[in-house]
């Protein structure tokens, strides 16, 4: 080694050693968070699942409008696919990089509140939310009686039916009671000589948690039952209503009117399912994919056990809440109020008609919000009549339970429903096992 190299600062060897360390250190460093200089605008981050084209653009419109009209507070959107949403919340929160505003699926609210991620809504916002939204939407956005955010899209469940298949079976209209539902299912079901299902009378599907559990919980609510007990620390599935639902589904499968292995989303579009319970968002997909066959699709309220029973169904949804880690909660709540409660003109409706930006956004992508007045304005004349039952259901729907451990309880319910449908468990065993497993897991989560 030459003296000049020895004394000339970093040698090549030292540089070679230092470079990877420097690169690693820079990789581990926190990303740039803004200037933070006095006078610079506050930048709020909003993390949602509006990652795809139509949804992303729909949200970006109001956000751009806010940014153009507000100098002091700017909003930057970030989006991931729904399947990655909870994981992204976890990872970013653990890394100290949680977004200021997050849009969780309401099922996770208990989990997020318990983990200290969601900030309770300030009293003035709570008042606005409870005043402006339906009971189901407010319930979905609340945990333990406290409101944690502005409800965004709300999905209610109703009965989709294929008018052509019902007509061919000599049935005039959709069933209103469970007896009619069963009769219609048996009369419309068809199989070939090898046992392959040609038409499912009533579609029951093991497609995923939401499909399997959504169908069952909608029927359970219609029977006057609930999945989670009033104190939120266990399940109430092992009840008369729960038994009635499990019995009904079991009969439909055993008698061949339902084939749970078939993906109902595809089969219904192909005219291979006469009836199925599903959420309102599906109308948009069906319209797009069925073309002119969509005229055969009808929607009716979820049938109730007896004709004089009050209607009830399930509702699920999302909300926008503020992160406890946000350094600018006041600004975040103000943005949410502007987005969710401030009324603006609706161009497509009659003159003078107004609705919130969020309601307009949701209807533009074929969804609903829990603001019934907005929905009536936006879904006025000329809109799809199949959306009407979902809109009506906002008044009587029961929100999906969102206690701590709700996600696991839902998965456990799905497993036991599948075990019932496939003959692994009897109705009694399925009810008993669901109760034991859900009680154990939900109590652990508190």
């Amino acid at each position: 080694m030459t003296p000049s190299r020895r004394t000339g600062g970093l040698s090549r060897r030292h540089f070679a050693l230092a470079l990877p360390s420097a690169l690693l250190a820079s990789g581990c460093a926190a990303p740039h968070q803004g200037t933070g200089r006095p006078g610079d605008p506050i930048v709020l981050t909003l993390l949602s699942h509006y990652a795809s084209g139509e949804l992303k653009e729909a949200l970006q419109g109001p956000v751009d409008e806010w940014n153009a009209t507000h100098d002091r507070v700017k909003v930057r959107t970030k989006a991931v696919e729904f399947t990655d949403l909870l994981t992204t919340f976890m990872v970013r929160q653990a890394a100290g990089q949680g977004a200021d505003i997050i849009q969780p699926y309401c099922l996770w609210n208990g989990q997020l509140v318990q983990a200290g991620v969601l900030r309770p809504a300030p009293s003035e916002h709570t008042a606005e939310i409870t005043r402006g939204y339906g009971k189901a939407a407010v319930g979905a956005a609340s945990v333990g009686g406290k409101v944690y955010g502005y409800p965004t899209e709300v999905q209610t469940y109703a009965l989709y039916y294929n008018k052509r298949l019902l007509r061919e079976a000599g049935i005039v209209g959709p069933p209103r009671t469970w007896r009619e539902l069963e009769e219609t299912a048996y009369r419309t079901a068809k199989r070939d000589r090898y046992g392959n299902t040609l038409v499912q009378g009533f579609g029951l599907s093991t497609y995923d948690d939401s499909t399997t559990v959504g169908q069952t919980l909608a029927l359970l609510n219609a029977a006057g039952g609930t999945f989670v007990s009033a104190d939120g620390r266990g399940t109430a599935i092992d009840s008369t209503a729960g038994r009635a639902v499990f019995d009904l589904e079991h009969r439909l499968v055993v008698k061949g009117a339902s084939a749970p292995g078939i993906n109902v989303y595809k089969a219904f579009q192909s005219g291979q399912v006469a009836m199925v319970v599903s959420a309102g968002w599906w109308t948009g997909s069906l319209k797009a994919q069925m073309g002119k066959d969509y005229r055969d699709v009808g929607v009716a309220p979820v049938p109730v056990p007896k004709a004089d029973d009050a209607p009830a169904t399930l509702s699920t949804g999302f909300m926008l809440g503020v992160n406890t880690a946000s350094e600018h909660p006041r600004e975040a709540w103000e943005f949410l109020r502007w987005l969710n409660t401030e009324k603006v003109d609706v161009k497509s409706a009659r003159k003078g008609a107004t609705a919130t930006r969020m309601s307009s956004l949701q209807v533009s992508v074929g969804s609903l919000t829990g603001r019934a007045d907005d929905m009536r304005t936006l879904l006025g004349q000329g809109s799809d009549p199949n959306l009407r039952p979902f809109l009506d259901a906002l008044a009587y729907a029961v929100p999906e339970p969102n206690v701590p451990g709700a996600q696991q309880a839902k998965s456990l319910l799905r497993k036991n429903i599948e075990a019932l449908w496939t003959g692994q468990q009897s109705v009694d065993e399925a009810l008993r096992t669901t109760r034991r497993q859900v009680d154990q897991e939900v109590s652990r989560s508190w």
Partner: protein
Amino acid sequence: MVNTLAPETTERAAHSPRSAGPAVDGRRRARRHQAVVAYLFLAPTLLFFAVFLILPLGFALLLSMSRWAGFDLDDIDPVGLDNFTGLFADGSTFLTPILTNTLLFALGTVALALAGSVVVATCINNLRFQGLWRTLYFLPIVTTVVAVGNVWKYMYEPGGLVNGVLNALGLGSVAFLQDPDTALPSVVVVQAWASVGSAILILTAGLKSIPESYYEAAALDGAGPVTVFWKITLPLLRPSLLFVCITQFLTGLQSFALIIVMTKGGPGDATNVAALEMYRQAFSYGDWGTASAAAFMLFVVVLLVTLVQLWIFRRKGEDA
């Protein structure tokens, strides 16, 4: 030339004259300097291992004895061995059916893939255009699991290709993925089919390394093809078989991608495996403690199975 990296023996050090002190000190300094430089060069690699192996392992161990929802590092709550006892508590599904399914899935995959690959590799070894055949059988390996899983799912569906063939033969349809009795074996077949390519590649290399003279000697002695296969090919293929067996078993015990695509662990828990359950516990239910405890239990199972496999093969005189 003096090898300065070689350790100095005690004898040499004892007989060194004191007058040679400065020279020895110089050598020591040089050795120390070299050691420092060596460690500095190793530092990026050691840092990499520390960050991506030791740290996560230690964190997982900590989590396995804690309760943590995955959001705030300050909320890690030590619970001792509760997560481990919970896995084996009355009513827990971890041991049965989840761990049982995991072992059956891995065992079934290894058995099918190994048997299939031995037969196919032996056939390929006697065919022309061996490269082409190996490439064809290797194709599933380079195909994404999602594509493989979905294609097979459609084939298994009522009205799909497999049931179509059964119907054409006058047989009734089988609900392959919907029936709890057939769901796991149906997924095992796909996993074996997807992993047979890599096994064939290794076994054909193993077959090539068997000296031709053995086969010539067997031919001179009048041994038939079956005898040659059982007495020469299979015993000499044992090191390759051991490698395939261990790697396929490890893959089988840890994989869940195909299952999540084809059945999502259902119906019920019929195809649920340990890795899928861990993923759900952590990322869906926010129970990182249970997920980490399950991961360590799976590690113990993997270790035990590997040690048993090594012991069996070593007893027969082969070393991986």
